[in-house]
Each structure stands twice: as C-alpha cells, then as structure tokens.
C-alpha cells in the first residue's frame, strides 16, 4: 500500500479558488431547474422574477462577482482517503487559510462573527471553515464547498417525532417548515431533508442531501416517491418565487434516510435558497 502525500499548502490554494468560484458561478443544474420553473410557473410576476434571477447569475459570471451578497459561512464536505498523508502543515489550518484568502481576494462578504453571546465582532476573514469529514478508502482528497447564507439556514428545523407519527408525520413536518418559512429563505428553494438517525446525524444528512444534483431522485424508490409527494405539497402552498404568490415554490426536494432507534423518529429540514452554491475539487 502506498501513502500519497498532499501538501497542506496545496489544500489551502485549492480551497481559496473553490470558495471564490462557488460564489461567482451558479451551477448549471441549478440554472436548468430555474429555467424549467420559469416555463411552468403561472404567475406573471414570478416568471419575471425568475427571469431576473437567471439574469443575475449571468451578470455574476460575467462581472466575476458574487451571485448573492450573503456569501455565507464556508461549509465543507470532505472525503479524505485513508491513504492520504497531509504534509507541511495541518488540515484545519490549511482549510482556514484557504477560506480567509478566498473571501478576501474574491471580494466576498465576511459574515463570521465572534462573541455569539454578547457584542458581536466580525472576525474579518470568514473563518473558521465548517468542516464535515468522512474517512474513505483510497488516496484522494475530495473537497466540496457549499457556502450557506443565513436567510435560508435560519429557516431550518429539527423535529423529534414519535414512531407512531410515521410517514405522514414526517411529510407534515417538512411541509409545515417550508410553509412557515414563507418568503424568508428567498424562494424558489431546494428542500434538503432527512429522517432517521440521531439529532445531529439527521441534520447533517438534511444538509448533505442538498449537495445532490438538483432534482436527481434518491436511488431508493420509496424515498424518491416521498420526495415527489413532498414537492407536490410544497408547490400547493402557493408561496411562489420570492413569496409573491405562484404555482412553483421549490425546485426540488432531496431526501436521505438513516436507520433509526426503535423509540425515535428524528426529522431534519435544511432549506436552501435558489443560490444553491456547491463546487467540488479532487486532489
């Protein structure tokens, strides 16, 4: 077995570029989903808004500036091959350095603040990176960034249901969360959700579900069916783009499930606005 060495400085450089690109370039799958929604939406006002949103993505790309001013906290999903050896520095420092440099050089907004319990002070460099790491076979390092804005993150929810509430209870909890959020998370939205596991696992899965290509169903037909039903219910709410009233509110519902304790039914919902930024690099 060979151990592959990756320089910490290479990680920092990759992350610097990754956070900038993620904030400037809206992924094509998101754009396609927005175009499809514009065709299907019945409200004139919402169609106009969806057109403006698509135009915004083009302007951001051309002018090399952030799609949205809330360039988020820098959330990462990392898959670290177990045959990788990071040399020349430590992983955490490299990730933070990449974030600090990217947010500064890319003219991205720094939203990370210290003193959560008192007089808040902006940290000035948007660190620390929020990192979720999985150890995987192989000798590659895969880093995905999903910058997450406050507006949509604030609308997320955790429900500790009882097993007797079952499938219908899960569906109701997710749809109610979207209903309550209304116009706040900048609809159209993508709904990341999960059922099962534990409190922390279910919330992590709900966010992870957002990394999937927009509209790609869960491979499990039972879960995919649930995704379709929830999407239909959400679009019936009438919220529409920006909450102005329309026939389309969500671009997609992405769900993940996890084995669960016999006494529990955790449900996690993570709402993602239409600025669904995600970008991956493999080292």
């Amino acid at each position, binding site marked *: 077995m060979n151990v592959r060495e990756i320089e910490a400085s290479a990680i920092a450089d990759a992350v610097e570029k990754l956070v900038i690109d993620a904030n400037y370039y809206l992924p094509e799958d998101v754009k396609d989903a927005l175009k499809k929604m514009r065709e299907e939406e*019945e*409200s*004139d*006002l919402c169609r*106009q*808004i969806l057109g*403006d*949103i698509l*135009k*915004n*993505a083009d*302007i*951001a790309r051309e*002018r*090399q*500036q*952030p*799609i*949205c*001013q*809330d*360039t988020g906290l820098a959330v990462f999903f990392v898959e670290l091959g177990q045959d990788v050896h990071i040399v020349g520095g430590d992983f955490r420092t490299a990730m933070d350095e990449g974030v600090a440099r990217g947010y500064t050089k890319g*003219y*991205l*907004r*720094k*939203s990370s603040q210290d003193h959560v319990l008192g007089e*808040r002070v*902006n940290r*000035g460099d948007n660190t620390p990176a929020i990192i979720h790491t999985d150890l995987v076979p192989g000798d590659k390092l895969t880093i995905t960034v999903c910058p997450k804005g*406050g*507006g949509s993150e*604030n609308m997320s929810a955790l429900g500790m249901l009882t097993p007797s509430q079952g499938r219908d209870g899960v569906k109701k909890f997710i749809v109610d969360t979207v209903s309550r959020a*209304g*116009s*706040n998370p*900048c609809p159209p939205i993508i709904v990341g959700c999960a059922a099962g596991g534990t409190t922390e696992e279910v919330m992590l899965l709900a966010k992870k579900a957002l990394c999937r290509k927009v509209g790609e169903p869960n491979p499990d037909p039972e879960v995919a069916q649930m995704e379709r039903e929830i999407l239909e219910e959400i679009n*019936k*709410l*009438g*919220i*529409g783009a*920006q*909450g*102005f*009233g*329309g*026939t389309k509110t969500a671009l997609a519902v992405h769900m993940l499930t996890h084995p669960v304790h016999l006494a529990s039914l955790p449900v996690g919902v993570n709402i993602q*606005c*239409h*600025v669904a930024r995600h970008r991956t690099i493999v080292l």
Partner: protein
Amino acid sequence: MTDKVIHLPLTDEMIQDLHAGDRVLLNGIIYTGRDEAHLYLCRMLDKGEELPIEIRGAVIYYVGPCPAKPGQAIGSAGPTTSGRMDAYAPRLMDIGLKGMIGKGLRKPAVVESMKKNICVYFASIGGAGALLSESIKEAEVVAFPELGAEAIYRLRVENFPCTVVIDCYGKDLYKEGRAKYEVK
C-alpha cells in the same frame, strides 16, 4: 406590467399611490442599515443624541453588501431578511422613516406603524445581489464604519428594481399572492 418610476424622496402622496404588487424603479438616495446599525440608531435615540442620517423622508435598505472590487461602486448588494429589523422599524417610522427595502415577512406591529405613519415596504429580489448592484451608482459610508458590511452607507440608485409588498393601507402581497395560488 409597466414599472412605476419613482424619484426619491418619497412623499405621503407618492406612497398613497403605491399598491401591493406594483413593480417600481427607485431613483435617488437610499441608506443601508441592518441588525447592528438599527441597534446603534436606537441606542442613540435612547440617549437623546442626534442621528447620523436624516431619517425624515428616508428609505432604508436592509443590506450588507459585498466589498466593491476596484472600479465598482459596491459589490453584490441584495436584501437581507427584514423580520430581524421589526423590533426597531416602528420607532424609526415614528420619527419620519418613509420606506423600507428588504425581503420577507413583517410583524403586525410593523404593518400597523406603516398605516399610521404612511410608509411603504418594498422587496428587492433576494439572491439577485449582482443584478441589483448594477443599479447602485455611488456608495459612501456615512455612519458606524467599524461595522464593516453592516455600516450605514448612503447609496445613489438609478432604476433600482423593487416590488411593493406591503402598502400603507396594510395590503400584503405575501398574504394575497399566496392565497391566490394556494391549493387547499
């Protein structure tokens, strides 16, 4: 739908002519302000100090822009969630604030104050910060520079696109639009 072109500052007559659902293009001076700036303004009022901006007739845009690149007036600058300013907004309307730009729901107390003081609440498109920044021609920090992106900026806007979401009669596009399309 034709957009209504508005030249700021807003007068009561102009506001009374705006209705929930109208698309407007704003021209003139607006101020930025979000969580911390509102807190600071209200603290100054508590102490009886003079505010650093002329609040009478003003429009406040709830935004924390990105830094400007060289050659730009401002970086991406879309709205933030207005509900977080609900605790402060009625107090500013009582002393002359005429318009707010943001996104998202407002509390009943804000709507009541808007009716009483003849104010209007606009939404600009959440998540369209790059597009919106093209309508912002000048930006200058006028208060609380220590707050960085949260400082109060004076912006000169040209044809800045917004939608009236709550008018001075209390009509709310978020409620009415949704009711129109909701399938029970």
